[in-house]
């Protein structure tokens, strides 16, 4: 079975073809970073315009790369939410049009579910697994019980982790998107203890009995440190130290929150032999975070999985794969499905359509 997957929910215009044997036959991702960088963040109207400009060419390229005709496909899947609605509609309408023309099944994919199921495409992760989903728009801990079945353990009360990274990096004078730059400059910090002593940062929610997150206080504290630095241009050494302290605070928060989630997961499935902890979403590209979570999993004696960086950030392959998993279980959607700006995983089976 081969499925075309289309993703346009944020600032990547992406299309891919994946088969049911987990082969990624093509995976085209066009990022709009440059279009948004002058604004210091993703601008919905600019994103929607760019998606329209590139969508058909991206699909065409994905088909060509895979050596496929539309007739070779078994279904068409597209992100129908959650995300920036103007962009979601471009991908959704594209998928609906191709499905209608070639009389193929159409599958409305939840973007979060696609991230959640990626470890099954890349690592054969067996159900049920514990998932930390952390990106620019989302931060959640959940147990992936099965396709379409998610138990939410906790989520962010304010900013998403990726958002906290990008905004803190911006305050530090780093270019957009700041996350990767923050990671890079933190690596050049030489005196770690001095950095932590000089730039103390809070670890919000640490010790709380639930599995929720809060990142806005951390962001504000990082900004305050920047404001307190001497006037004039910021010095690379100072920012390297602050960035190191920031990453350390984030890792401490994640260790505390995920450790609690692992306990909850183990309590629910005490006899599970294949227990695994999976990280997905753009933030999983950060090496310090990966390493921290890997040792956390080791300490808790459960296996750790993280998809390759290219499949952690938004892409079409994960949409195609979510399409395959859903279609294999008989899911198929009518062409009157609406795009949904909000579509929490707990409400996965509620789709809305025109009355």
């Amino acid at each position, binding site marked *: 079975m081969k499925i075309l997957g289309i993703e346009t929910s944020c600032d990547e215009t992406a299309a891919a073809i994946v088969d049911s044997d987990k082969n990624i036959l093509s995976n085209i991702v066009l990022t709009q970073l440059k279009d948004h960088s002058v604004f210091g963040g993703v601008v919905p109207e600019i994103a929607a315009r760019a998606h329209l400009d590139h*969508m058909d060419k991206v699909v065409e390229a994905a088909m060509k790369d895979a050596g496929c005709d539309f007739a070779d496909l078994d279904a068409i899947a597209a992100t129908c939410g959650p995300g920036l609605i103007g962009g979601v509609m471009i991908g959704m309408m594209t998928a*609906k*049009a191709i499905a209608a023309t070639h009389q193929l099944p159409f599958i409305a994919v939840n973007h979060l579910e696609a991230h959640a199921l990626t470890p099954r495409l890349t690592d054969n992760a067996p159900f049920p697994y514990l998932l930390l989903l952390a990106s620019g728009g989302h931060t959640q801990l959940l147990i992936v019980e099965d396709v379409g079945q998610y138990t939410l353990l906790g989520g962010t009360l304010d900013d998403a982790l990726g958002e906290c990274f990008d905004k803190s990096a911006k305050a530090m*004078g*780093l270019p957009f998107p700041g996350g990767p730059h923050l990671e890079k400059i933190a690596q050049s910090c030489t005196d770690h203890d001095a950095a932590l002593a000089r730039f103390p940062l809070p670890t919000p929610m640490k010790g709380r009995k639930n599995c929720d997150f809060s990142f806005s206080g951390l962001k504000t504290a990082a900004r305050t440190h920047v404001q307190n630095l001497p006037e004039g241009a910021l010095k*690379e050494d100072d920012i390297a130290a602050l960035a190191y302290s920031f990453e350390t605070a984030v890792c401490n928060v994640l260790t505390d929150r995920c450790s609690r989630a692992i306990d909850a997961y183990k309590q629910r499935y005490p006899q599970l032999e294949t227990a695994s902890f999976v990280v997905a979403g753009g933030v999983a590209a950060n090496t310090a975070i990966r390493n921290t979570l890997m040792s956390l999993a080791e300490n808790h004696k459960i296996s750790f999985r993280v998809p390759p960086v290219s499949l952690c950030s938004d892409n079409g392959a994960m949409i195609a794969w979510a399409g395959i998993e859903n279609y294999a279980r008989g899911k198929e959607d009518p062409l*009157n*499905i*609406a795009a949904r700006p909000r579509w929490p995983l707990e409400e996965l089976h509620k789709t809305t359509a025109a009355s």
Partner: protein
Amino acid sequence: MKFKKILALDTALNACSVSFWNEDSNAYVTDRRLMKRGHAEILMPQITDVMHKASVSLADVDLIVTTCGPGAFTGLRIGLSSARALGLATGAPVAGLTTTQVLARQCLESCADQAQDKTSLLVLVETKRKDFYYQLFDRQTGKPQCDAAAGNSADILQQIEQQHTIMIGDAIDRFRKEAGNAAPEGLDGFETPSPEVMIRMACDIAAQDDLAAYKAEPVYLRDADVSPSKKEQRILEGYKG
């Protein structure tokens, strides 16, 4: 070029409209619905329904026509993304017509004998802001007298001769309120593009081999409404990334 099976769609204004024309029967199958939102839900079922009623496979369509603005940004993108994807899926060319062109033609087709003293046709399309999308056409030839643009009522009044102009479009009531006595005479009934008129326009354009000039590209007439972040970002000395 001559096309035999043409599909037209419009989602740019307050309607979701589809029409299919088949040369064999010279008949239209049309579904026009007035609606302010929900185009993304209704459009594709409308298209499959129209094709079903016409007993023609969507894959056999040989020309796709869509409105490409000016109008609601989300609306025009729904039409354009659908039309382009239909083009990709069928291999058929895709043409874009502006909402102002289509409304003008609609008026010229059906009201040629009305208000014959009016030599200019002013098409006014709602921006849902203070200004108007507008374009002026010659009443006799149907040719545009200016490019479509966005402007306020004072700008527009400067460009028209009130007594020789007739106005149409979904923004004429608001224009009348703003321009008062200076507003030209208005004609109701031309608020949303007719997909059948779009098909006739496409046939004419194709007959003159001019289809390439009507690209399925968005006509926004307005930049994205954003300004660069006002929060001053401090300079990081010597950082090369």
